[in-house]
């Protein structure tokens, strides 16, 4: 939407009076650029929105999980395709999933399987970039790198942070147990960057990096230091009331709040959960990450991205799915969904689990499956998603959707619609290029409750 007519907004219509006053007061003699204003003025096109979800927990299975071994089994297919796993029945009559997912089978009435997700990017970095930003990357620098040349698209989390991020006691966009590849803020800037918990919550000594006051510093001493600091700042060199130094001041205050606020500290204190609950999610990276995500959402977090890796099973697909990959995932996802439901949180918490691709139906010579983006299964639950449905279907080898294929933009539009984010909103890059939150795609109405 390049046709935002600036001329018509000369008197600041389109932005609130308060913003106007703030612009006037801090406009830095040219420090306020046109793009900034465009961003402020970026207008929502009217769409049929149905905000149901307050928060989103997004589980990224990095490497590409095998849809045909998990959610979309083809027991009638030849042996070189169907693999060793058998389907089992679930809480939803007629819906069958893999024997590897017994816990999910029991709560299949709470989530929906989308079996016709499909796109055409068969590589990890580029596919993940597309999934997480909504933009198929035409990386000028090739796909070995996670950053497109000069133009960095914001990730879903940064978009959610920007649109819905005000007011929580915890950072609105959190990633764990490590950064999601293209999970950054792109041209939106550091303000919308994720707070990355670079630590695995399943570790016994888990803590949030730098959140805890060192043991050698008593609370009293910490307070004394804070008083000293506040006075030293006041007495020191006069500081600007805008710009980066000023921003760091406000972040510093937020950091102090995080460190000292019992509510925030509690959100991150996974040890406060009963061992029964921790057991229910499983003592795995994905399990405890999912549990921590639930605690963060309870404290007001808006988007929690969970990164779970090693799904790129070119060799030994079956043993790794059976032994290391699926069981903790089965436990984590089923526990998360049912726990959210038990707590009355599922209706306003959207859970999404997917990879950047599926895996080839044809088993390779190393008992592995290779990259296959043409057909994948995505699991969605809560936040306005149907319960217990299977949407879409694939052909008899799980190679291509036989129903309407849904692409990444379709999926993202659906996620944003449920969160009440206008996917057609446009922000301009510093170079002045207008970038809608999502370009193209249609909301997947079949998924909606």
């Amino acid at each position: 939407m390049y046709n935002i007519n600036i001329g018509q907004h000369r008197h600041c219509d389109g932005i609130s009076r308060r913003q106007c006053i703030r612009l006037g007061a801090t406009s830095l003699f040219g420090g306020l650029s046109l793009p900034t204003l465009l961003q402020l003025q970026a207008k929502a096109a009217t769409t049929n929105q149905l905000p149901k979800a307050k928060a989103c927990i997004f589980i990224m299975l990095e490497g590409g999980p095998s849809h045909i071994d998990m959610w979309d089994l083809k027991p009638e297919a030849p042996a070189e395709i169907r693999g060793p796993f058998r389907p089992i029945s679930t809480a939803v009559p007629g819906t069958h999933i893999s024997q590897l997912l017994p816990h999910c089978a029991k709560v299949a009435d709470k989530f929906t399987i989308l079996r016709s997700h499909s796109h055409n990017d068969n590589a990890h970095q580029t596919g993940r970039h597309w999934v997480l930003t909504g933009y198929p990357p035409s990386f000028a620098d090739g796909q070995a790198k996670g950053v497109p040349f000069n133009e960095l698209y914001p990730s879903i989390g940064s978009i959610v942070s920007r649109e819905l991020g005000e007011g929580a006691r915890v950072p609105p966009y959190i990633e764990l147990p490590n950064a999601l590849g293209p999970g950054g803020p792109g041209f939106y800037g550091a303000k919308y960057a994720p707070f990355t918990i670079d630590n695995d919550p399943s570790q016994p000594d888990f803590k949030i990096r730098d959140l805890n006051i060192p043991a050698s510093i008593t609370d009293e001493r910490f307070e004394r230091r804070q008083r000293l600091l506040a006075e030293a700042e006041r007495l020191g060199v006069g500081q600007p009331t805008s710009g980066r130094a000023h921003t760091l001041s406000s972040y510093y205050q937020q950091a102090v709040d995080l460190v000292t606020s019992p509510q925030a500290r509690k959100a991150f204190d996974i040890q406060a959960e009963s061992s029964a609950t921790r057991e229910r999610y499983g003592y795995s990276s994905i399990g405890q990450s999912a549990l921590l995500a639930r605690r963060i959402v309870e404290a007001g977090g808006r988007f929690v991205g969970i990164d779970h890796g090693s799904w790129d099973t070119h060799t030994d697909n079956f043993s790794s799915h059976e032994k290391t990959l699926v069981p903790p995932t089965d436990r984590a996802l089923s526990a998360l969904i049912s726990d959210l439901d038990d707590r009355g949180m599922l209706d306003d918490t959207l859970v999404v689990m997917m990879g950047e691709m599926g895996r080839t139906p044809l088993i390779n010579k190393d008992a592995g499956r290779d990259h296959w983006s043409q057909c994948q299964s995505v699991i969605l639950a809560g936040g306005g998603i149907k319960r217990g449905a299977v949407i879409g279907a694939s052909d008899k080898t799980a190679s291509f959707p036989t129903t309407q294929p849904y692409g990444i933009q379709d999926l993202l539009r659906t996620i944003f619609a449920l969160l009440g984010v206008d996917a057609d909103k446009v922000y301009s890059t510093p170079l002045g290029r207008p970038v809608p939150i999502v370009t193209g795609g249609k909301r997947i109405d079949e998924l909606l409750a």
Partner: protein
Amino acid sequence: MAAPTFPSPLSSHFVAIGATVCLLSGMGTNVKAVETPGLRVYPSQVQLDSPESSSQVLVFGRSSDGNSVDVTRQATFQVSEADIIQISSMGRVIPLKEGRVEVRVNWNGNSSTVAVEVKGIASPPAVSFHHDVIPILSKAGCNSGGCHGKAEGQNGFKLSVFGYDPPADYEALVNSGRGRRVFPSAPENSLLVRKATAEAPHGGGRKIEPDSRWDRLLQRWIREGMSLDPPSIKPLSGIVVEPPEVTLEVLGTQQLRVSAIDANGALRCVTSEADFQSNNEAIAGVDRQGLIAATAVPGEAAILVRYLGHVGVCRVTRPNGSGSSDLSRPSESNFIDRLVWDKLDRLHLIPSSVADDASFMRRAFVDTIGTLPTTNEARGFLADQSTGKRSRLVAELLQRPEYSDYWAQRWSDLLRIDKDTITPQSAVAMSRWVRGQIDHNVPYDQFVRSILTAQGSTLSQSPAAFFQVHSEPEKAARAVSQLFLGVRIECAQCHHHPFERWDQKDYFALAGFFTDIKRSPHPLGGLKIAAGAGSDVIHPRTTQPVPAAGLGAPPATFAMGQDRRQVFAQWATSPENPYFTRTIVNRVWAHYFGRGLVEPIDDLRATNPASNERLLDALAQHLIELRFDLKSFTQSLLDSQVYQLSSEVNESNRIDEQNYSHALWKPLPAEVLLDAISQATGIAEEFNGWPKGYRAIQVWDNKLPSHFLEVFGRPRRETVCACERGTEPSIAQALHLMNAPGTIGKIHEPSGRAAQLAQSELTPDAIIEELYLATLSRFPDQGEQQLMRQAFESQDRPAATEDILWTLLNTKEFVFNH
């Protein structure tokens, strides 16, 4: 290669802007020295040559204080014969029938006349698709990136964004959609017209008023048989924006006039079809008709004008306050001061006073060598009473090895010396080469020529790996263009650059210099880079080869078997190249002053003018005179009063961020901050696998695991954009400063500064003084002494000393250079 192969690449819009000044000398700019009569009308003669043409008249009056001001909308217009033309209250003339007529313009008791001639009504010239239809599709927004210009089009109708591909647009309008968009036998029923005027339901709403000039023009084009201009049609040679600059009072306005210059040099008014955009809406906005309106906020804005791929600009100045300034100008050390004070004068801004010695010292150390002064260095400099000590300090800093370390690291970022891309061995080799170049103060043009023509083994101390990183012609062209010429050409890969003159042809022409670079495995490991014969790049749309050419330059010629890159390097690094010198000057300026004269610093274009063009020109000239000696150039920058201004603001310059009326706060880069903490605490950082004592600014390995460096924005070296280095603060940074075990450990370490001071014989006051010098490089004042003494009152000396050190490391005065 003695002479550059091409003439100067001065772009046509530079010429156009220059031409504007001649056409309108003195008019519209309220330079008091210019004699202005009571009323001036421009132009004095108007010619309209088709039924749908229009012409903007500008009226300038003299205000009560003698300035020339725009009164176009306040003036009244009387037409001698009312049926020949119509003139709107905004001064736009529209033809009705053929003939000659005189318009009398009245304002405030003054009057003047304009002669108008109308032709081409009875037998109008045929409508040109390129020159008449495309501009309307652009102005109405049809082909914008948010509508039919999107990559996938809109509802099945796709136009090229900003009309960069007229044949494709012609195809889309005339032939695709089963030809339903145009209806030659009943043009008014054409879908094109009915949708645009919202006579038929249109998702985009009404874009063109029914029966307006544009509606009639589209219909006439259809009626005339929808001709596509012959391929030989000559493109416009440029546009003229009038006035080219203007000074406006609070809420003042200025109407613009835009003319297109055709291939024969003839002018045609296209004000109503041109696109207008302000680069600084907070200071001055512009509407669709080209009326600039200033706000109450003082400063400068550029109004960008776009028409058929050409761009022009009108610069707006909004002085601070309404009255005139009465500044006593601070003294001048060199031309930099003169040009900055000139600017501040014009804007009625009072610069801050000159910074004290301590602030200057810390600033100069951190900016130049990325290193804090030691307490001894600080004491020595502060005690020195001799004159000229500041200039001497800068000269000394420029000779220190840390200067080479620090600047080698900065250039390694920009040149993308990344071990994951080019192997650790190559990264070490190229890093060493870069450091050597800086250490020997190799002239910048020579440094760049070496990079551009690099060859040989990537394992030798050479820039050869630059072409391993930039492994394809287009990749190299984009990187080189942005890095050394400040031109972000990548938009033009897919479409005409919306704010620039560059199109796909320019893009592929540039790529033609970097074809056929051979990258073969070297027998001793690494790659061997060698240039082959080279060939022109095929344009993907036209499938024709595009002759290699510099930006805005005619096709290059190559001697038999010549390395094409040599021809490019000669052109690119020539002092006559207007991009090359300005780009490096702006880059270096931005480093020391916290903000480029042009921002973003590697995005130079006519539509993104410098905040002080005269200064940028003078700096470029100065560097050329210095034969690209960057150390001498840096000395000039740091010798200026402007560099030495305090960061403390006054009432008048509080809001200034781009005119250098006070020093800006700059975050310490990640590596510099880590070194500063190590130095202040007296505990060196240990880098895994590196000998003890290496500092962060010396580490060539940009992927060395370090949470600290990542949190504070170390670049990943994945692009040549200076923007890759994170300079924005984050919560993680604040947390890290506050609680990071590494920093807390350094403060607490028994061999560290805090413990050593606590164990010493020094009094609490002396300890406090030492800690202020070690962190903030200045003595504490009485109030600060008194505050910090409190720490000693409630606890033992080690705890008190640690608390003070922790506190000082957490001040923004420590984390920023100011």
